[in-house]
């Protein structure tokens, strides 16, 4: 996609622009002549931000374009060019990433520091450009590394895996093994995502209650009608009775079960909440009551 812009740049630009509208407004001034030596056709500006991977990339581009070494970073020049780009982009109302503006500020700061007189004893390590140069070099290394990786022959693009059909495979099915910690981990993940912690007071809900609810419903699935008292196991003691009772209330509240009593003092029965269609009890046939 390297741009071979047919449009002449610096030399012919003045004549060409005679009858043209200003193509940008910089600081309120109409710009009819594009900045010399960094002319980007206005159309191309649109893709400007996509073309560069951020301010470091843009700076590198400005430096490389002039065949300069990063180490000799001509700060005044680069700053000026950089800021002109930014100005153009702003006037074209391109959405400007904050990083570009931060860089502009940094460049301006370095420039101003370099204009100030320096005490003699100041060594090179205090060169205000040092940090910027370090970052530019660092970025350039990885930019190059990314290009290198891009060149490496890779599957799907340069080489293709060979995967010959196996004839008449008798599939020996092996069920996946699951460990409890995997299960806990899954729950941890899903809860973290759903932010259930924040929204509910589920902490109060004990697992035994949930389990008991399942047990109660399961016994209904088998017998359909279950005597209330048979749901309690005396051996479980007081806590067990409370859990069971709470489970029944909970199910009742959710309208999953109904409680019926034919007459006063007759045995109380629990049954699944009334099923609308006769015969269609629990779907999934074999699975119920397992």
């Amino acid at each position, binding site marked *: 996609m390297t741009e071979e812009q047919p449009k002449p740049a610096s030399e012919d630009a003045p004549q060409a622009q005679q009858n043209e509208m200003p193509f940008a407004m910089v600081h309120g001034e109409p710009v009819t002549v594009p900045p010399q030596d960094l002319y980007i056709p206005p159309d191309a500006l649109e893709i400007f931000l996509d073309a560069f991977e951020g301010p470091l990339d843009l700076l590198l581009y400005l430096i490389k374009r002039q065949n300069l070494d990063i180490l000799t970073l001509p700060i005044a020049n680069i700053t000026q060019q950089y800021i002109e780009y930014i100005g153009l982009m702003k006037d074209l109302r391109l959405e400007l990433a904050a990083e570009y503006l931060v860089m502009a500020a940094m460049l301006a700061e370095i420039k101003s520091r370099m204009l100030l007189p320096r005490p003699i004893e100041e060594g090179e390590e205090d060169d205000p450009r040092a940090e910027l140069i370090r970052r530019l070099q660092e970025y350039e290394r990885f930019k190059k590394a990314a290009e290198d990786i891009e060149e490496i022959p890779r599957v799907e693009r340069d080489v293709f895996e060979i995967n010959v*059909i196996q004839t008449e495979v008798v599939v020996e099915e092996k069920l996946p093994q699951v460990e409890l910690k995997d*299960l806990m981990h899954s729950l941890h993940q899903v*809860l973290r995502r759903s932010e259930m*912690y924040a929204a509910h007071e589920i*902490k109060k809900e004990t697992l035994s209650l*949930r389990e008991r609810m399942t047990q109660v419903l399961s016994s209904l699935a088998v017998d359909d009608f279950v005597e209330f008292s048979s749901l309690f196991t005396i051996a479980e003691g007081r806590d067990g009775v409370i859990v069971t009772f709470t489970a029944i209330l909970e199910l009742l509240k959710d309208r999953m079960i109904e409680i019926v009593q034919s007459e006063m003092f007759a045995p109380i029965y629990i049954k699944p*909440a009334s099923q609308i269609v006769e015969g269609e009890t629990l779907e999934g046939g074999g699975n*119920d009551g397992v």
Partner: protein
Amino acid sequence: MEFKQLKNIVEAALLAADHPLTADQLLKLFEDDEQIPSKDDVKKVISELEEDCAERGYELKKIASGYRYQTRVEIQGWVSKLRVERPPKYSRAFMETLALVVYRQPITRAEIEDVRGVSISSSIFKVLLEREWIKIIGHKEVPGRPAMYGTTKKFLDYFNLKTLNELPSLAEIKDLDQVHPELAFMDAEEQKVPDAPVQLEVIEGGVDAETRH
């Protein structure tokens, strides 16, 4: 193109293709070339390739939709072991669905989907029901009467639990990283981490990606 190169390309193409190829389809691979091979050449290549593997563990077979390489029945006993050798693993969606049934039972599919934020494929329930780790324990009396799921005795047996109470509470799971340091990622020695004091933990493949969006 030399015959030898033609043969190399046809052979590699047949090996790499994920579906059978006809002679015409093979010819198409060369349509941008200066010299397009003839169909006869391609057919000659194919018959040579057939002979080349006459004594090998695989063969070039002509089936209805074209030619394809396949392993020979004679060695199926060995090659089929490839399939079972990798321990199968349940997907994250599967594990999370199971975890939600465990902790929120009785729960409907819609409720699980609600928490996970994505729809769940029916096959997950099918497998969970087939393994008899969950069962339908009733139907919720709301429109559509959706099935409500709960865990089974088999589930408890598999995980060696007497009751669900033996599982950590939700609050503990929230602090999973701290509570169960033994879950720590075992690769520690392999992954030399020079930089900073680091606490490793099990988060395999892509977990974070999903939390991000």
